[in-house]
């Protein structure tokens, strides 16, 4: 039986393009990290499970497009997870669009209600992130919640480190505005 336990990540990614056993090893090495990221970012265990499953399924389908580019496989997975988190939030928002923006926010926050028995972090912050434009949401999620370095974030967004710093600054300003607005509502 082939064992990939000691194979380094870059080799494993190459092998995983052809061999499910190699991908399974990549999955086992990263699944808890992605789950934890999704759980923190959504505050909801069930949603985090779904996002984790979808993230790895998408990674499996898109593995041929993966390029290390100086950042690790986990950074790529985190980006996929972030996209899925944002997409799910958008879908929920669309479902309730007829109820108006104010009602939408209330419903949205309820639908992302954190688990009662979890130390779920910061629900107001999670809700405010969900209301940000995708690019702002992504940069803040990757940089601060996912713990990627500025250069990794820049690489995954396809922008220069300088532009990434500017984007981060603007995203923080937008988030603050959302939080301040949320507090007044």
């Amino acid at each position, binding site marked *: 039986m*082939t*064992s*990939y336990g*000691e*194979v*380094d990540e870059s*080799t494993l990614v*190459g*092998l995983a*393009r*052809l*061999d*499910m056993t*190699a*991908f*399974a090893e990549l*999955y*086992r090495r990263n*699944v*808890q990290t992605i*789950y*934890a*990221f999704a*759980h*923190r*970012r959504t505050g909801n*265990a069930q949603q*985090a*499970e779904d996002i*984790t*499953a979808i993230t*790895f*399924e998408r990674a*499996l*389908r898109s593995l041929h497009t993966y390029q290390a580019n100086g950042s690790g496989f986990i950074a790529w997975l985190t980006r996929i997870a972030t996209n899925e988190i944002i997409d799910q939030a958008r879908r929920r928002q669309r479902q309730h669009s007829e109820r108006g923006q104010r009602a939408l926010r209330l419903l949205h926050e309820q639908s992302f209600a954190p688990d009662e028995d*979890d*130390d*779920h*972090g*910061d629900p107001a*912050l*999670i809700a405010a992130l969900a209301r940000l434009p995708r690019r702002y949401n992504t940069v*803040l999620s990757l*940089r*601060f*919640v*996912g*713990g990627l370095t500025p250069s990794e974030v820049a690489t995954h967004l396809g922008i220069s480190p300088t532009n990434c710093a500017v984007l981060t*600054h603007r995203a*923080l*300003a937008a*988030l*603050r505005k959302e*939080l301040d607005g949320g507090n007044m509502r």
Partner: protein
Amino acid sequence: MSDDLEQRLRRLGSTRVPPLDDRRVNEIEAQLSRSRSNSNGVSWIAVAAAAAVLLLALGTSLVRRGNPGSLQPITPESTITLTTPGTFEPPSTTTDASSPATTPPTTQSNLPNTSPTTSPPRATTDAPTTTAISTSIPTASFVLAVERVGDQLVFSWPRQSPDGATGYALVQVGANGLTQWPVDDSRIAVLTDDLAANRARLTIAGRDGRRWVVAVIGNDNRLIAISSTAATR
């Protein structure tokens, strides 16, 4: 002000969350396996079609050239580097002769017994064509991956340790893969008795299409296992 917000985001990123339980981890893994199986079912149609086109093109090419074989001998300018886990360095245009687990480049011949290794390679009398008994070819049991980096081909495979294994041979094969064993010496690009090796670098001038297999061999050049076929250009 932004610092406070950054700290708040970082706190969110370090919130303690319970791990995903083993049952769910296994469920998702099974789901991924099914997903791969299903997608393979579809892609095989495309793969089969592509293979048919390639075979047709290859056949046409051979007829035109009147060349009965498709194998090209490993050229004398080939250089080989073997790498064991923990000693690999990113491929470069120069071979790494300082690493204790690597094989310095050979510039005279591609034959395995001319490549000095930390563990002496087989003697010439052990060459597959002279001593081994013809054996049936096992089905591929592990994957050989390859990528080109400049003039170098970087092969990688998972370390194998089946009973009786004594080393690896990186073998150039024809369009049908490895069809017989032993093979002619000229088809063996790398031969090592270092079972910890999981990579090999090969510098080959030119970009002719070639196909490769890693064979796991035992005593008396017994063929124990083979990898999938990897194609290079």
